[in-house]
């Protein structure tokens, strides 16, 4: 597994933003992991090892960071990655019901992907849109105030 020449250039650019040495390389880890996810689709162990090599950091330190953030996928995801915020404010607005409904509709539980590879369902931590919860992030886009089963159905319809 290797970064494309284009992405390699981007990594060089990223590294320039931080101080030289290990601290800087550690700081560059998040943006580089995003780049890896973009190119490889998800962060497989192999992808993490590639990042480790490019940044000259230990595999374990990459693993700790990659698994901490829900925005990094450690398994392949479907076309639409439904990331439901399951943190406090969203739960008070009914996020749990939203998840339940999604589970029923899609026939999967959080962490799984539908057989047709269309949807992956995940519960994630606060998406920083607490005022307009419950929030579902679909790939890179936010869908806010998804409160009722009907709201969920409408969203799914749009994605079909």
């Amino acid at each position, binding site marked *: 597994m290797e970064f494309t020449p284009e992405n390699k250039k981007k990594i060089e650019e990223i590294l320039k933003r931080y101080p030289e040495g290990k601290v800087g390389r550690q700081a560059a880890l998040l943006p580089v992991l995003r780049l890896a996810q973009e190119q490889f689709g998800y962060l497989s*162990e192999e992808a*993490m090892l590639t990042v480790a090599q490019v940044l000259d*950091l*230990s*595999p*374990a*330190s*990459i*693993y*700790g960071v990659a*698994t*901490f953030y829900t925005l990094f996928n450690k398994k392949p995801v479907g076309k639409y990655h439904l990331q439901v915020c399951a943190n406090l404010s969203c739960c008070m607005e009914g996020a749990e019901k939203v998840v339940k409904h999604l589970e029923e509709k899609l026939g999967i539980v959080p962490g799984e992907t539908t057989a047709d590879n269309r949807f992956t369902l995940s519960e994630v*931590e606060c998406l920083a849109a607490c005022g307009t919860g419950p929030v579902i992030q679909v790939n890179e886009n936010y869908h806010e105030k998804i409160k009722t089963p009907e709201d969920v159905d409408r969203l799914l319809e749009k994605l079909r």
Partner: protein
Amino acid sequence: MPKVTIDEKVVDVPEGTNLIEAARLGGIEVPHYCYHPKLSVAGNCRMCLVEIEKQPKLQIACNTKVAEGMVVKTQNPRVEKARRSVLEFILINHPIDCPICDQAGECKLQEYYMKHDLAVSRFPIEEKVHKDKAVDLGPWVMLDMERCILCTRCVRFCQEVAEVNELCVSERGDHSTLTTFPGAKLENPYSANVVEICPVGALTNKDFRFKCRVWFLKRTESVCPGCSMGCNINIDQNEGEIHRLTPRVNEEVNEHWMCDEGRLTYKPVNQKNRLRFAKMGEKDLHPDEVLRAVREMMTGVDPNLVCGIGSAQFTNEDNYALASFLKELGSSHLFYHRFEPAHPSVDDYLIKADKNPNTKGVSTLGFKEIGGDRRFKFFFVLGALPEEALNRIALEQQKKVILFNPWDEETVHYADTLLPVGTFAETEGTFTNCQGRVQRIRAAFPPPGEGRPVWQWLTHLTRLFEKPAPNYTTAPALFLSMANQIAAFRGLDYEKIGNQGMLLKG
């Protein structure tokens, strides 16, 4: 130096000291998990909360530096309540499997629970988050994921001391798990140190676990014989069987650590093939008989045919006793040998390529490396010297070898006389490490069978020769004589060497 008041006690501590250390200097223990004096401050466990006057919230002592006039309370009701809450929080998902946990008896969770909490758990055991148990992390360490309190001491040890980031905390929240990269191992040459710094039973030593409950262990302060660094250690044994060696703090030598290889040096002590009785040929003999036979053999021989071969594996005292004995016989031919493996491990921290604890000592005592001068017939040898090394300096005619050894090994059966002696764990005396630091080792128990220290054998033998010296009754007496006789040892005092060692002169 700033003055701070801790629990009514005024202590004067160096600038930059944190409150845990400041309290320690005042004789007060602030309970803590994640803080370790040799690692960076993580401040994640919150166990060390204390009250500081004029600060509205409790502060963590590990990450608070002293300031002039600070007034700190470490045991008022507010602090005690916080401590209980923190402990309860840490214990939420703890499996409480003390009865089958090897850490029981030296576990900070147990200790602090008994001392600061003693409350009934509000978290039913069925509702706890479970994780993997008995995860094999590498050659030395076993991990119980659900016992881990995520203090990250082990992670920081690997980063900061071993300088290989082999460990990390993965996931988050109550799924957080200590781990290596999938499929990777914790296998740096210092890996087992994480076992001692883990405050709980999450990391256990594969070589030690389930061998012995820690409260049955008796501890003896000693020095690792694995290489010329001479890391300070504890010998932990029960009824004459060593169960583990653990590092003992010496800031001038090994700080708080030891290498994994050094931890194995106790194995030969427990080995079955210990030499128990004095032997001539294949026959076990009474010590007195053997000594009389040696005396007979040595009577009237030309001193120039006699040489002593000391060993970098034996103490200064043993080598010195050999030198004084030879002197009484009229010989000053002193050589030494050392253990030289073909591919010694080495690094730029503790691990030295010279795998002998006392090379510096034996050479300081005037022993020379074995040369090529073939003119000796009688040999007094410490330790398992390979026969071919001996042959390099032996006359063609039959040689006579009196050999002191802890083991009954094939390789020494060429010796005419074998006398059983103690290993490092059964010997009182000193080693001089590569820095020139003279450090004491202590006997954890006596050697098996008729085994006794080299110097004791030689003292008995000297008496048979009706010579005045050596006539030693204890290792300290020997040391005193050595300090009087040998310039480099002058001024050293056995008592003052204590458990931290003293440097040779010059």
